[in-house]
């Protein structure tokens, strides 16, 4: 079983945990909670602090190595219980989980996700459901290999550029307020993208994630952490 599937097998468990946490969350406001008043984070700037970690920690046991996944996100409160968020992403890495004829695939790309985020904990500011429109671009490099049992394998380079995709994403988040300024968000996301062009199947698509075996319609899900700093 690929290491990515082992990792993602934990996601349904996390989702259950997250849902239970949100539903059975603090129902009675305590004096500390009232003093915190989390819903008054008017504007916050966040950064993803988890996505690059498995690649560094697990190394060759993870499906993507040497990965740098940088995701700054801006959250702006429009009214009580409603935020708009804008996320920019950049990813660079090497996928080492082979498909039929491609052993390694270096990917580099960017993505933009924007959309509303609604408080689903009766405006207490602990749990949010978000929907975003997504646009992403990617380029790939690597070597392909066609096996030759009698005379030897043929290896050659490939390069694919200008690979665009668009789609949507939903997020389910739990906010943990560490202090007056700092907040940690635990997110579960599901992303659906459609590629506009490209002949190769991407192992990893920026903005989506692990997409081995998919071609034009890309579907991915995952869980991550964002650290936010309150600007206003």
């Amino acid at each position, binding site marked *: 079983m690929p290491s990515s599937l082992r990792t993602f097998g934990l996601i349904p468990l996390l989702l259950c945990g997250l849902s239970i946490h949100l539903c059975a969350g603090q129902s009675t406001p305590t004096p500390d909670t009232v003093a915190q008043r989390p819903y008054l984070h008017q504007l916050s700037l966040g950064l993803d602090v988890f996505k690059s970690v498995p690649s560094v920690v697990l190394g060759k046991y993870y499906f993507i190595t040497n990965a740098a996944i940088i995701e700054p996100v801006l959250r702006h409160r429009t009214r009580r219980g409603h935020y708009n968020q804008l996320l920019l992403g950049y990813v660079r890495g090497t996928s080492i989980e082979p*498909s*039929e*004829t*491609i052993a390694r695939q270096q990917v580099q790309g960017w993505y933009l996700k924007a959309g509303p985020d609604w408080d689903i904990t009766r405006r207490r500011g602990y749990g949010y459901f978000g929907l975003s429109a997504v646009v992403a671009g990617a380029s790939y490099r690597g070597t*392909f290999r*066609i*096996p*030759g*049992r*009698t*005379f*030897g*394998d*043929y290896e*050659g380079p*490939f390069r*694919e550029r200008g690979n665009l995709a668009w789609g949507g994403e939903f997020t389910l988040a739990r906010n943990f307020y560490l202090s007056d300024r700092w907040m940690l968000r635990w997110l579960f996301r599901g992303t659906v993208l459609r590629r506009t062009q490209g*002949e*190769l*199947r991407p192992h990893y698509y920026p903005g989506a994630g692990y997409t081995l075996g998919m*071609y034009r319609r890309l579907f991915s899900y995952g869980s991550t952490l964002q650290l936010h700093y309150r600007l206003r």
Partner: protein
Amino acid sequence: MPKPILLLALLSLALSGCFRDCGWQEEPLVHIEYSGPKTFRSVSALGARDLTAFEPLPAPKPGSDSSYHRTSYSFPLSLLADSTTYLFFSDTRVDTLTIHYQRYFYPKRGCDFVAKIRANWAKQVHSSTFKEVTVEFYDYYPKVSIKDF
């Protein structure tokens, strides 16, 4: 029950169509039809690292008279060069057959990379010690006819 069998039949048809659409994702084969009096003990190729594809040789079939017989072979072509030379060992001599071609590697939707063999018209298509050789390039494989009498 007829329904699962029908489903299996349809699936087999669909899958066979899919394989044909991808083309070669391994060494392409060349089909060689030999007509002549010789019986070959073994066949090999220059640069071959593994001779499993050349064993066992198919049995010859009798021709329209006793002076010759016919044998059909399917041998792999090298992906590492633009020609492959086969050596046919009979009791009295060794015959050679060299086929020249062009190799194409390209990405194909849903298949990653595939290989394709085409004729190389800039070069002599074949050279051989057999008396008469014809090479035809079809969509998926070349076909060689050897008339050795």
